[in-house]
């Protein structure tokens, strides 16, 4: 477990004392409970699991790690080409 996917908060409302967000997942909108992420704001990305946001995606962390991953991709490709190794296929 567990299937949680990232979505962007488009709107935040209070529904019967529960902080609820209208969250967009690649073009579809779904309601998610935001009670576990009181710091979340409109335009933040959140990880949503069974209708509840469990974290706010940390942009800087993501960017930092991704930059490293991308460089690994480039280096890896070069190494593979140099050693004549073809990617497993």
């Amino acid at each position, binding site marked *: *477990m*567990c*299937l949680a*996917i990232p979505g962007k908060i488009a709107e935040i409302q209070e529904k019967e004392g529960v902080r609820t967000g209208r969250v*967009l*997942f*690649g*073009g*579809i*909108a*779904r309601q998610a409970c935001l009670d576990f992420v009181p710091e979340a704001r409109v335009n933040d990305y959140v990880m949503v*699991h*069974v209708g509840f946001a469990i974290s706010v995606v940390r942009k800087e962390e993501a960017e930092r790690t991704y930059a490293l991953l991308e460089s690994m991709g480039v280096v890896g490709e070069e190494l593979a080409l140099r050693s004549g190794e073809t*990617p*497993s*296929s």
Partner: protein
Amino acid sequence: MQRITNTDVISLPSDSVNQEVNGTPAGFACPVPLPAGGRVLLGHGSGGKLSAELLREVFLPALGNPVLDRMEDQAVVSLNGMRLAMTTDSFVVKPLFFKGGDIGSLAVHGTINDLAMGAAKPLWMSVAFILEEGLPLDVLRRVVASMHAAADRAGVQIVTGDTKVVEKGSADGMYINTTGVGLVREGISLSASQAQPGDAILVSGMIGDHGIAILAEREGLKFDTEVRSDTAALHELVGTLLEATSEVRCLRDPTRGGLSSALNEIAGSSQAGIELQETAIPVREEVRGACEMLGLDPLYVANEGRLVAIVAADAVEEALRALQSHPLGADARTIGRVTKEHPRMVVMRTVFGTTRIVDMLTGDQLPRIC
């Protein structure tokens, strides 16, 4: 690593019909037959392995005959030198009305498509209604008007019908059963058993629209860009394709059970393998998002206005051009090929170049949380 071969599995005492189901020899799935006193499950209607099992265990032993046993989407019978195609279908969709269509247009299109997949020109239909007591007449009028419009557009006549009413609580409002009759195009014989290694696999457009449109309506999913059912009559598209090339082996409309079921059936009937390219499978962004969210795989989601075509390798260009020239085939593309490797199995080459099996589902695809 060795490949598993047929001789390595437990063999069954065969039933009266030696039916290959879902692309694997009957012995590979559980050899224990349906228990006597077992019950019908929802999964038996989902177009996957359970459906195949029901056919194998209940229907074919009792009803089998040379025409039925061929198990195509339509039956072809000969009369006075003419080849007639006949099909039957039932429509139990809930809700009755959805974006892009309703149970009425679905019924007409679905019947036409089953005939079209056999290269038959659809001519006549029967329609039988099973209505729930209490259904508002306005609803019935809307559905019937929609059926009339769909049949009219397709040049099909609804020539006979029937009505039954059942007590409140049954039939989800209404069920529709149809029979369609058409004339098979001369000089053409399409069959799921004709796929050969080297053939190309084409799909006429984006997959998963219908299933997601229905699910969205039922579950109250809101889409920024609406997902509409793709329900449509495909006989003209088929006509355009068959005019362009005679080297079409097989056509299927991937309805319940999705693209995966249709391809597994073809692989099974043809005793050939199928290899798909993940990067080539066309899926609308909204459909992909809905599937990610619910943990569904678009390969298993129903379509009602798409076809899969198996064509000879050297006919691919003309075939694609023909499909793409028609509004219903604008997004047509090649998604894979038939191979002699892994016979009866559908295998996907992933974006990473690795492989995985695209299995036939057991019953309905269940949304997952894991």
